[in-house]
């Protein structure tokens, strides 16, 4: 985690990020002064339970949540607000709910062609076919509608859609929480493989410590909008944690003790 400071800036640097939502007259602080840095090609995890603000951090990076304080930098540079097309080519996101992240009336072909059309890619036909192959989906899924696909298949399409514009950074918001355990394993393996093949940087959000441990090298535990503890994988496995909350999460991941 610490060490010799490198001259290259962190891929993603989040400093003192705060996100506050206004609900009528009330102000809800979803994220309170959270800081972390993600190195290039690294897979970084954000762990927490509901209300921890972990998903909100991702949305703030994407411009989907209003930043009320702090700073987000990618490759050392500030990001334009509102996010422009160049940003879309560098940062993409996979959402949690496979049933909500694909437009119910668009065929898979349309889902995958649209980003290509927006960014004016050539040879779209080939790219769509290749994208489906890359995520392990047969060509016969191409013109189906989302409701004809299973949860795992939809999530694969969501991943294909995110990667079809060739981003450098992939944000993953609980990508497997809504999936069965066996499908989860397939999707996690797919993500790992794609990360290697395409030299991606990941930020992964999950409530499942085991999933984060498997997928990420370093992680940040969040609770109630605040950062609790930053860890790396080795410390987690050795149970060398400083905070009681992290310890509780670890215990909970091992099942029930009668």
């Amino acid at each position, binding site marked *: 985690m610490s060490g010799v400071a490198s001259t290259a800036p962190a891929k993603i640097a989040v400093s003192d990020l705060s996100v506050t939502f206004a609900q009528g007259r009330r102000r809800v602080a979803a994220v309170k002064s959270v800081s972390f840095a993600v190195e290039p090609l690294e897979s970084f995890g954000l762990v927490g339970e509901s209300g921890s603000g972990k998903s909100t951090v991702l949305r703030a990076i994407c411009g989907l949540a209003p930043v009320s304080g702090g700073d987000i930098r990618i490759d050392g540079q500030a990001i334009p607000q509102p996010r422009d097309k160049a940003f*879309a080519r560098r940062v993409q996101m996979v959402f949690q709910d496979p049933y909500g992240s694909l437009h119910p009336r668009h065929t898979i072909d349309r889902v995958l062609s*649209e980003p290509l059309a927006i960014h004016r890619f050539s040879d779209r036909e080939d790219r769509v076919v290749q994208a489906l192959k890359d995520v392990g989906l047969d060509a016969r899924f191409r013109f189906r509608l989302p409701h004809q696909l299973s949860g795992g298949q939809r999530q694969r399409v969501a991943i294909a859609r995110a990667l079809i514009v060739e981003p450098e950074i992939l944000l993953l918001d609980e990508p497997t929480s809504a999936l069965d355990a066996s499908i989860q394993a397939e999707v996690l393996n797919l993500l790992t493989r794609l990360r290697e093949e395409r030299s991606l940087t990941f930020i992964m959000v999950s409530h499942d410590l085991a999933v984060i441990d498997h997928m990420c090298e370093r992680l940040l535990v969040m609770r109630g909008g605040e950062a609790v503890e930053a860890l790396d994988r080795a410390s987690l496995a050795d149970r060398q944690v400083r905070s009681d909350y992290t310890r509780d999460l670890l215990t909970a991941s091992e099942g029930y003790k009668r």
Partner: protein
Amino acid sequence: MSDVPAPSGAGGLSAWLTTDTPRSRFQARAINLWFAWRSLVRNPLAVIGLLIIAALILMAVFAPLIATDPPNQQDLANRLMPPGFQGHLLGTDELGRDIWSRIVFGSRVTLQVVALVAVTAPVFGLIVGTVAGTLGGWTDRVLMRITDIFLAFPRLILALAFVAALGPGIVNAIFAIALTAWPPYARVARAETLTVRRADYIAAARLQGAGTLRIITGHIMPMCLSSLIIRVTLDMAGIILTAAGLGFLGLGAQPPLAEWGAMISTGRQFLLSQWWVATMPGLAILAVSLGFNLLGDSLRDVLDPRGAQR
């Protein structure tokens, strides 16, 4: 998780429509429509509604072949004759014109009204509603207040005012009706937009770099279509009645144009003695309104629950 059906028949079209592996966007859409159709016709009331509307369309298209006499041909010697008299299926009116033929040709006018209003008002309302719902803020407020102003007036009164200003005539009447019919569609579209706006697929589209126009037309509008179609179908009855009302007041179709409302108006004076002059066109309006209502109700069953589940 997929509930795709098994291929049914040996016919090429049948297999094409029931395959679970569509080969093009067109095929996928056709398959979807086919299943919606199958669902719809399972309901006997829907079938009745469809038949009535089909009859209306056929009547309008083949009017010269179905009518027994030219609609405006007067025969004063045989005025106000009862149904069945000398081949006049539904009798004659106060100028001796064959009522059946006038109703048949009047269907063209009715269809004209329905088609033009259905094409203009919902489209305009859809645009206003989705833009207001998507952009929010002042755009939303201003557009909705304008909508409210139009909504505040009873439809017939507003249509009356427009026609009075523009002058009587069927085209002006249609224009006036369309002007008063769009506000509910704007409200419906806006309500749907507000729900759809928060979905992940919209966020994903934004993240892809889609501009607001693409999101509204490609993502939000398709989701509003079901509600809108249902609403339009159910409104048709009201629109026909408004057109008839305007005709009744002499502000819609002008004589000698055969329009069902105008026919009721002139037949009113003979209601007690020669009842068929007013009643026959009235029954025609009743039948067509019923047809649209039945269809609209059944469409709601077919389109809505799917929308909710998928």
